[in-house]
């Protein structure tokens, strides 16, 4: 159970074997995805036909690599655009919320805090359809009333951004609040005492202190936005982000191009994830 209490050797070895098996289970799917990105075959499956980089750089059909595949490049661009917006909004709103929940006492705070946590327990599909239904209703009403078109309220990137933001903001709020809670308010008071304005004290003392959490939550927001599927699926219009594009391609049949994209995604996600951890650890 713990190192200081002796256990039979058989038990210890069984336990270790289980842990190793578990990590094999974790690593297996990702490993095969990466591996088959280099297989010189039009199907991502055995047998191994030899090593190739064609699925990254190739330009002759059927070996059209990621970097020459227009639809995927465009989808990556769309995803990046969405992610930047989602992260920006989430960080700004999350920071405001953190100040509100940590620094202010007001009636209904507990209720608002509960509501703020709700997106964590609402399935993504439901978030998607509820926003879809609501925005369409608003659009219909507005169009009936004014006779103008409100395309922004129809499925498309603005709704995708709002849909993803609706739950990413909760994560940003939690991460930034946790950091703000550790802030010693007397530092801000000291700045005020030394002649800083209230706003100046927050800007020069508190925000720099929050920076690691803000950066970490921005990184995590980008990651969550890039990965999101369920909410996006319900709100997507003609321009689709990467996960949706890949899903459509996957339904038509898989080619190693998907493996190549996935490999890139794995590398980028792992790098971004590690970065966010580094930032959180630099919190002293």
């Amino acid at each position: 159970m713990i190192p200081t209490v002796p256990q039979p050797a058989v038990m210890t070895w069984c336990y270790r074997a289980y842990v190793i098996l578990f990590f094999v289970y974790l690593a297996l799917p990702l490993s095969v995805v990466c591996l088959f990105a280099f297989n010189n075959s039009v199907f991502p499956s055995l047998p191994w036909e030899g090593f190739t980089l064609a699925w990254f750089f190739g330009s002759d059909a059927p070996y059209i690599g990621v970097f020459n595949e227009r639809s995927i490049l465009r989808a990556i661009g769309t995803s990046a655009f969405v992610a930047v917006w989602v992260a920006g909004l989430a960080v700004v709103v999350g920071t405001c919320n953190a100040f509100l929940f940590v620094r202010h006492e007001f009636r209904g705070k507990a209720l608002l805090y509960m509501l703020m946590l709700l997106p964590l327990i609402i399935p993504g599909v439901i978030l998607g359809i509820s926003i879809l239904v609501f925005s369409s209703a608003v659009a219909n009403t507005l169009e009936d009333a004014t006779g103008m078109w409100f395309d922004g309220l129809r499925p498309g990137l603005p709704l995708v951004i709002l849909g993803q933001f609706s739950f990413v903001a909760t994560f940003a709020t939690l991460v930034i609040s946790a950091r703000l809670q550790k802030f010693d308010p007397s530092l801000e008071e000291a700045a005020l005492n030394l002649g800083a304005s209230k706003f100046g004290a927050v800007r020069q003392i508190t925000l720099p202190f929050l920076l690691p959490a803000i950066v970490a939550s921005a990184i995590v927001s980008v990651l969550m936005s890039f990965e999101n599927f369920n909410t996006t699926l319900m709100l997507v219009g003609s321009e689709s982000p990467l996960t949706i594009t890949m899903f459509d391609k996957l339904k038509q049949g898989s080619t190693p191009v998907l493996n190549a994209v996935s490999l890139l995604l794995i590398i980028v996600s792992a790098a971004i994830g590690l970065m966010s951890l580094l930032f959180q650890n630099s919190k002293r």
Partner: protein
Amino acid sequence: MSRDASKLGFYLLLAPLLLWLVLLIILPHIGLFVVSVSEKVGVREYEIGLGNYAAFFTEPLYWRTFARTAIMSILATGLTLILGFPIAYYIAKLTKGRTKTTLFLMCMIPFWVSELVRTYGWMILLRESGVFSSFLQYVGLASGPVEMLYNDAAIMVGLVYTSILFMVVPLVTTLDSLDDSLIEAGYDLGGSSFSILREIVIPHAMPGIVSGCIVVFMLSLGNYLTPILLGGKDSLWFTGMIYTQFITRFNWELGSAFGFLLLALSSVLVFVGLKLSRQSLSGTMGR
């Protein structure tokens, strides 16, 4: 710095929160409910009624899918807990320093990668022309291609894989905070490994178990990708049905009713889970 200024500051902070919660969470869900109790009687003409819910209960395909989704999700949650607990315990209690960080990171990395990629990995492994099938033929355990995709076991493997991190992380956090001397005290007072697990370790880990179970259950219930891709067209997952009503059939009224039922189911189970384990939502999720 006047009182008015700080009041103004407060409202400026409150505004984004309220905009977010009201416009993106509260009103949309009210809207969803309103649409779910509307019945189409003509072109752009609606009446209030429970017809959509009635349709759900009278059509066996609908409610059976619903029940199936719920049961499979509970099963996946239980399985994730049983499989994840020893791992979390190992990381939290039996490793130290760099090994601990490495193992923890190895757990995290797969989950920073898109669910689509993870599921795609399982497709490559499990399908008829996949790695497992080829391997079985190679070692002579199978004479022809074996299809391991498109069944419930495949869905289960995918669901557990997709959500196990959300079980392991909160468990590692709570188990980490369990003082070793409590376990030693248990042994010292004559406890066996099993009784210590039951009386000391599990009660201590309860907040982690509850929050892990809630998150895993939510993720399984609301999952769309894994059942569709690993379970195939007939996977009969409730989110798939919602998608069909909304996007394929364009029957938003029925789709909204389905959505609301799913929401109700998840809320009820989360509520029951919290009550049974005497935890609070803020306590388990707001960490």
